[in-house]
């Protein structure tokens, strides 16, 4: 029973501790995920924006090379345009959380990229000067708009991640504070439970120790009061039973001693009465002899002492022994008759 109680308390403590730990880990993980997302996504975003800027420049250089006749294949141009298109699509998806400020800019970038690509395609293939001029102006305009929007989106991104970082750090601070309080509470509950568990053991043990000590002092009437339905309760009941048995034994011994004392007292009273009568006769016959009177008085005193001793035996409440010789015990009459 006691074991079950201890286990119950122990399980409760472990569950409480595990729950608190798991909750703490889960919440910390949440904050760390947020910080992780901010740093990784921002880096990826900045990389992408930078790459887009580089791709636009490379497209312009490649286009110039084609127009100057130094290059007549469009494959590098395609790669740069495709890279730009991929990165434009990626911009909208890199950041795993919605970035509402930038939502108005994405369609603009996509639209400008389409315009830019169309004019680049025309410029790369046309041989008409007027067409070159017309498309060049449009392509440059689209290029400038693209760069401006990429810069703008980068700025929006930085503002957004800064705000998210601040939010995450603030959340982390509150979380640490909250966890500190929670763990203090958990520790307090732990201590209270430990105290309760220790009381559950120490209190009955103390009672039993005290009762045993008093039993050792032959106080057979002492009983232990343990209101527990466990091993300590059983132990207390066993102890009380033992004490009761010892008390009964003692009582029987005292009663026997008392009966023996009554019998002795009876016999001794008879003998004492005869002796006292004879002492009175002897005193009358002593004719005032001091020595004789003194001897008769001593006999009378010792007779009275014997009578008192035997009488005292009738009042024995418990048997208390004392050393008579080294290996012999005798009844301590004074203590045995004491209240």
């Amino acid at each position, binding site marked *: 029973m006691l074991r079950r109680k201890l286990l119950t308390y*122990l399980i409760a403590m472990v569950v409480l501790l595990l729950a608190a*730990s798991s909750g703490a880990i889960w919440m910390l*993980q949440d904050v760390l995920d947020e910080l992780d997302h901010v740093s990784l996504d921002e880096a990826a975003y900045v990389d992408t924006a930078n790459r887009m800027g580089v791709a636009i420049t490379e497209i312009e250089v490649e286009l110039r090379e084609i127009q100057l006749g130094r290059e007549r*294949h*469009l494959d590098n141009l*395609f790669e740069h345009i495709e890279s730009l298109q991929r990165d434009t699509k990626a911009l909208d998806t890199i950041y795993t959380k919605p970035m509402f400020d930038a939502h108005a800019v994405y369609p603009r970038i996509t639209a400008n990229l389409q315009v830019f690509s169309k004019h680049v*395609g025309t410029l790369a*293939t046309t041989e008409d000067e*007027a067409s070159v001029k017309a498309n060049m102006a449009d392509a440059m305009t689209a290029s400038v708009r693209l760069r401006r929007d990429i810069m703008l989106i980068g700025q929006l991104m930085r503002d957004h991640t800064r705000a998210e970082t601040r939010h995450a750090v603030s959340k982390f601070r509150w979380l640490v504070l909250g966890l500190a309080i929670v763990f203090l509470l958990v520790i307090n509950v732990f201590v209270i439970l430990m105290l309760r568990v220790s009381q559950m053991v120490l209190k009955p043990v103390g009672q039993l120790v005290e009762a045993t000590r008093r039993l050792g002092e032959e106080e057979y009437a002492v009983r232990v009061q343990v209101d527990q339905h466990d091993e300590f309760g059983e132990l207390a009941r066993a102890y009380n039973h033992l004490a009761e048995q010892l008390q009964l034994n003692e009582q029987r011994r005292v009663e026997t001693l008392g009966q023996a004392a009554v019998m002795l007292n009876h016999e001794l009273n008879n003998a004492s009465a005869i002796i006292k009568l004879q002492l009175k006769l002897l005193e009358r016959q002593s004719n005032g002899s001091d020595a004789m009177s003194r001897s008769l008085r001593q006999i009378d005193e010792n007779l009275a002492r014997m009578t008192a001793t035997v009488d005292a035996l009738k009042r024995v409440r418990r048997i208390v022994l004392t050393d008579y010789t080294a290996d012999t015990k005798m009844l301590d009459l004074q203590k045995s008759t004491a209240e």
Partner: protein
Amino acid sequence: MKWTKLLLFCSFVGLVLAVLAWLAYRPTIENGPTTASQPTTLPTVPVIRLGLMPERDVFAVRREYQELSVYLQQRTGYGIDLATSNSYRNVLRDFEESRIDAAFLGSLVATLAVDRTGAQVIARAEQTSGISTYTGVIFVPESSSIKELCDLKGKRLAGVRTTMSAALYPVYECKRNHQDESKPEHWHMVWAGTHESVIDEVLSGRADAGAIKNLRLDAFERTHPEQKFRRLAVSAPVPDNALLVSRAMNPDVAAKLRSALLAMHTDEEGQRVLKTLGLKRYVPCSVEDFSAIYDMVETLGPHWPRTAVDGPPPHRPTTRPASAAGNG
């Protein structure tokens, strides 16, 4: 005691698992994709450089032919590298300089490649409508005051260099109609880069008329029903974009390439790629199919330089039958 030990053990295991779970899911600094990753192995298969011409939106052409190149790589086992030239004449130069092994070419460039480099024609595209030829068409916006070819005098005609429909055919049409024997091209040419650019030039007003292949104009009209055009003249049909392989190409490789291309429509993946290209299938083709080109060139005779095509005209291969070229 036994139960206590068991409980402590379970608690310990639980805590260890919790720590492991945290470690497993803890945020890690991920390395982004490396942009400068080095290939670990060098390609061991032969690579075919496949030339493309800027017939229309070059980016769309690139996307579509990338699918085709992947398909051909799977079917032939050879690597396929695409090389898109910025003009028709540069595709021809690539062939002449052996910078490409094969190319999908327009009809005029194809005949020039055959004539100047000995390239071989092996297949041509057949549209989903079942048409495997195209015609040159001279067109104006429907709202234009130009009603017939003679109205083009002094006007700007947009075309594409080194193409049948947009360079050869307009000059041929003038010569055929004897409009001005001394100056067949009595209009001013505006050279755009692609057939679609020609349409843009006409719609933007930078050109009064345009000359392109009918397939492109039809496609544009399908996607822009609000735009209407008047066709002033239409040429005789010539094979649509044909695949030519260089004379230097290993015959086995050429045969494998041809087989893969001609069998495309028989497998599911091939059909998917063909659909991407807007084609039904590839059909066999030979230089004889380009007789209309040779007819036009022969009709032009000494006026060939007025097509603005560099170099001499393509010569009809011997024993090639003559046929009527234009019908407009």
